[in-house]
């Protein structure tokens, strides 16, 4: 029997190796797998490359992981924010590398990795600093930039509900990068508000089919202070 649920957050992040590329879902306050990031911090993996839209805010979550010196490099679209002081400090000190990617190109590169696309041409960033050194091509009279897929070893995402096959549905704008990151990583770990019985999710409304998910762990916001708990 397929059962992708794992009982604890520790089990959910077990085996993530030093040097891994880890995608982290979420956009600002929405859809952030905060409990999984905390578990990764406790797990101890180092020299990570993080792929995420932001570079951490405040002092928790991704910012805490960065502050602990675990992140060597970050690939994101929007690192700067009024509360991105942790990243700002390390970046200015030359202690973290940044690959800045336009948000739509970031999303499409992640999708391309999951979809087995070798590379693609996009008009975004054409003629800008962010296209420097990249191959370009004029298609239908318009300049395009060649972009390559972004693969990951691990994706940490947050969904609303999940089942033992790994099927997921999200909540509102919390969906954001979760569905595409799930397709692009060798090991996708989803924290969900609720594990539901197989068949409880409407097959017309499943956003991430279980084929993309390796581990599902129940983690409620209310339980953010206890990293280990049993899945339903």
């Amino acid at each position: 029997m397929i059962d992708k649920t794992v009982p604890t957050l520790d089990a959910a992040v077990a085996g993530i190796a030093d040097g891994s590329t880890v995608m982290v879902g979420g956009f600002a306050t929405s859809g952030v797998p905060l409990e999984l990031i905390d578990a990764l911090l406790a797990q101890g993996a180092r020299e990570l490359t993080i792929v995420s839209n932001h570079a951490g805010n405040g002092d928790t979550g991704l910012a805490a992981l960065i502050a602990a010196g675990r992140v060597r490099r970050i690939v994101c679209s929007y690192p700067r924010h009024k509360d991105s002081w942790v990243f700002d400090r390390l970046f200015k000190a030359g202690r973290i590398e940044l690959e800045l990617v336009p948000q739509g190109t970031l999303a499409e590169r992640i999708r391309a990795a999951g979809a087995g696309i070798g590379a693609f041409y996009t008009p975004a960033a054409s003629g800008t600093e962010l296209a420097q050194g990249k191959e370009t091509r004029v298609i239908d009279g318009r300049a395009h930039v060649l972009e390559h897929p972004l693969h990951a070893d691990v994706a940490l995402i947050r969904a609303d509900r999940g089942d033992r096959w790994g099927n997921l549905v999200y909540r509102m704008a919390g969906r954001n990068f979760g569905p595409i990151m799930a397709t692009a990583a060798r090991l996708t770990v989803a924290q969900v508000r609720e594990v539901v019985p197989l068949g409880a999710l409407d097959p017309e409304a499943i956003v991430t089919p279980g084929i993309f998910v390796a581990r599902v762990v129940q983690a409620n916001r209310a339980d953010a202070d206890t990293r280990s708990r049993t899945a339903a």
Partner: protein
Amino acid sequence: MTYDRYTRDQMASRVARDIPACSYVNLGIGMPTLVGNHFTADREVILHSENGLLGMGPPAAPGHEDPDLINASRTPVTLLPGGAYFHHADSFAMIRGGHIDICVLGAFQVSVAGDLANWHTGAADAIPAVGGAMDLAAGAKRVYVMMGHLTKAGESKIVERLSCPVTALACVDRIYTDLAVIDVTPRGLVVREIVDGLAFGELARLTGVALVDGRSSG
């Protein structure tokens, strides 16, 4: 000669007036979000937010904020009946695929060719952040810019050539400033409207690039 600059709300109202009913519109971070306050419900302008919302409603009422329902500026918002959620690749497919009718963006500079600079001041110690600016500028059917006409130092933000890093080339269709409304056209920058009390010649002097007076042509 005395004149009052347009306030930010006047600018937002002016932009809203130019957006046809039933348009699909993305409002960029900062001043452009004010435009959303000036649509009347009967016109049904449908707002897109690049973090995965179509049919975005007004900001959430105090006490009803939900951390999972925010716009791209991180403001808690609402969703209208008929709205939909989708993931980031689908959201930017809408943008890149030319499905957004109008995008309203803030800017540091716009050139006479419609080149846009709005993602990075270029300052050596600034941490760069781009977000969806390049995708929006390259992808929307029409790009409108909202910005102050002059920097705090009094320099024109409408320039012959950008000195700030480029967001996208030849993408801006119309510029709304606190002094004027200006179209970017193949025959140059055409002034459509100037604040009361400011003469065309004075606007041209302040701007410092060639302007065409297009006010008679509507």
